[in-house]
């Protein structure tokens, strides 16, 4: 039994179908990403999971409890970070945390620790109304962690953050997952999902297009990895020699780096070809296909 079970979820808003017969199962301990462009139905799915909106059809169970019929029990072990996180401007961070701890029935002592944990040590007594977007997001995460919930639902957790801010949030997500928390997140920022998630569901126009691990998604689409080879003294002759290797899709030279898209099994042949042509390899790495490519391939033609 998965920690989250979504069966046939459908939601219409005034005649517009936001989510269309979506079924998903999320296993304990994974980082599951719901990926899709804006308006794909990600937030609608998440809000249905929390009983914030009422589905037109379908049912959702969390930890075995029906979200609508046993909402309180279902929500007992969920931490949630909304897409547009909003607190009470008149409260300080610590007052905000204490309010939510009280709502959850958690120990108020946790609040200070959690604020320190997200790096808001010095800002606890500042009013939330004066917080920056990044601080709000960190407070949002701290709030979601109250009571150490077994499932965290994060709607666009890095939306609107600068690269450093979003890196910090991603680190935190990984750390929480390592400590046993199941994570369900949504994003339209592909590279971020790629970095943290173990499984991905692709949603477009409310329909589930694909759900699988990142690796499998790449394989299914036959997207090839890119080899990035740094050479001491690259030349056009090396490049043309590489292009001749069987299994190589394309190769290009920029500076002293050759980027080769190829079947991963021909790596050795490429290395041999370069060395036979007199090239000296300084660095060699494989870049897996980006989710951007996966995504474009899946949603194209819609």
């Amino acid at each position, binding site marked *: 039994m998965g920690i989250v079970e979504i069966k046939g979820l459908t939601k219409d808003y005034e005649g517009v179908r936001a989510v269309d017969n979506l079924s998903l199962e999320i296993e304990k301990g994974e980082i599951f990403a719901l990926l899709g462009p804006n308006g794909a139905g990600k937030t609608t799915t998440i*809000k249905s999971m*929390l*009983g*914030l*909106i*009422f589905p037109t059809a379908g049912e959702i169970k969390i930890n075995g409890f029906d979200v609508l019929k046993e*909402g*309180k*029990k279902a*929500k*007992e072990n*969920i931490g*949630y970070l*909304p897409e*547009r*996180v*909003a*607190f*009470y401007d*008149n409260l300080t961070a610590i007052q905000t945390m204490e*309010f*939510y701890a*009280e*709502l*959850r*029935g958690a120990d108020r002592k946790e609040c200070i620790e959690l604020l320190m944990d997200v790096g808001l040590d010095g800002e606890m007594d500042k009013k939330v109304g004066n917080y920056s977007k990044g601080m709000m997001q960190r407070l949002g995460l701290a*709030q979601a962690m109250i009571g150490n919930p077994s499932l965290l*639902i994060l709607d666009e957790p890095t939306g609107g953050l600068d690269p450093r801010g979003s890196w910090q949030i991603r680190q935190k997500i990984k750390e929480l997952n390592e400590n046993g928390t199941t994570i369900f997140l949504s994003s339209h920022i592909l590279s971020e999902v790629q970095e943290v998630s173990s499984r991905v569901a692709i949603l477009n126009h409310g329909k589930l297009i694909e759900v699988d691990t990142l690796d499998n998604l790449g394989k299914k689409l036959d997207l090839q990895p890119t080899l990035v080879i740094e050479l001491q003294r690259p030349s056009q002759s090396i490049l043309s020699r590489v292009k001749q290797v069987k299994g190589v899709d394309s190769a290009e030279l920029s500076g002293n780096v050759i980027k080769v898209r190829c079947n991963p099994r021909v790596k050795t042949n490429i290395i041999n070809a370069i060395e036979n042509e007199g090239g000296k390899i300084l660095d060699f790495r494989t870049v897996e296909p980006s989710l951007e490519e996966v995504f474009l391939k899946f949603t194209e033609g819609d």
Partner: protein
Amino acid sequence: MDGRAIYAISKKEFMDNWRNKWIIAVSAIFLLLTLVISYFGSMGAGGVGWRDIDATIGGMITLVTLLVPIIGLMLGYATIVGEKEKGSLELMLSYPVERIEILTGKLFGLGAVMAAATFIGFGVAGIIIALNVKGVQWGNYMVFVLASILLGFVFISIAMLFSAIFKKRSAAMGGAVFLWFLFEMIWNVVIAGVLTAQYGIEKLTDPNFMAPSWYYVASLINPVKAYSALVSLSISSVNELAGNIPSFVNVPFNLAILLSWMAGTFALTWYIFNKKDL
């Protein structure tokens, strides 16, 4: 439903209004106006001076019927729609909290704000009056204060209904302002108009004229009127009700009207809020 979330939410509502000085401001207004009414209320009858509590209550009823509804409406009109617009309601409801607990918590919390302001304002005023006049009827004063708090709860509950119905804070505020005018003025004018149309002005001015029962029922369905009738009937020396009143217009009747308003609007708020997508 359990007490934890209700307590947490009531406490937050109360503390918000404590921190933003609402409670103190409203208490101060109540205190000041009560003292003014008590000291200057007898100006027309020659000279000023402290009047006793019962006489003061008579003057305060008008004050309460004007102020308490507007304070209740202001406290409650944004409590749901405001949080919904902001987005904080969504987060609150993601916690293991039922929608009825949120509504109950808000009603209790905002009601406590009203109760605190009323107790402090009227309480301090009562003590000051008691220091200056003899033979204070504390029991009567208590009835008056409690009835005023009940009127406050009624209007908070009505305001919460508006807050649950409207999609925009500004619309809920418009609704609240309209409601105030409805109960303070429009209602009475319309009913008096119907009465005049039915009997003619000459009959109405006849001192022996007895208004029909429907007039009392229609008039007292207005919670503001039910409140002043309730206080008048409970405290013998206060008489806000003119003419020969039918026997069914008694304390339980008016109390029932006020309680029905509170319970009815609260139930309707629950019904609407329970189906709402956030």
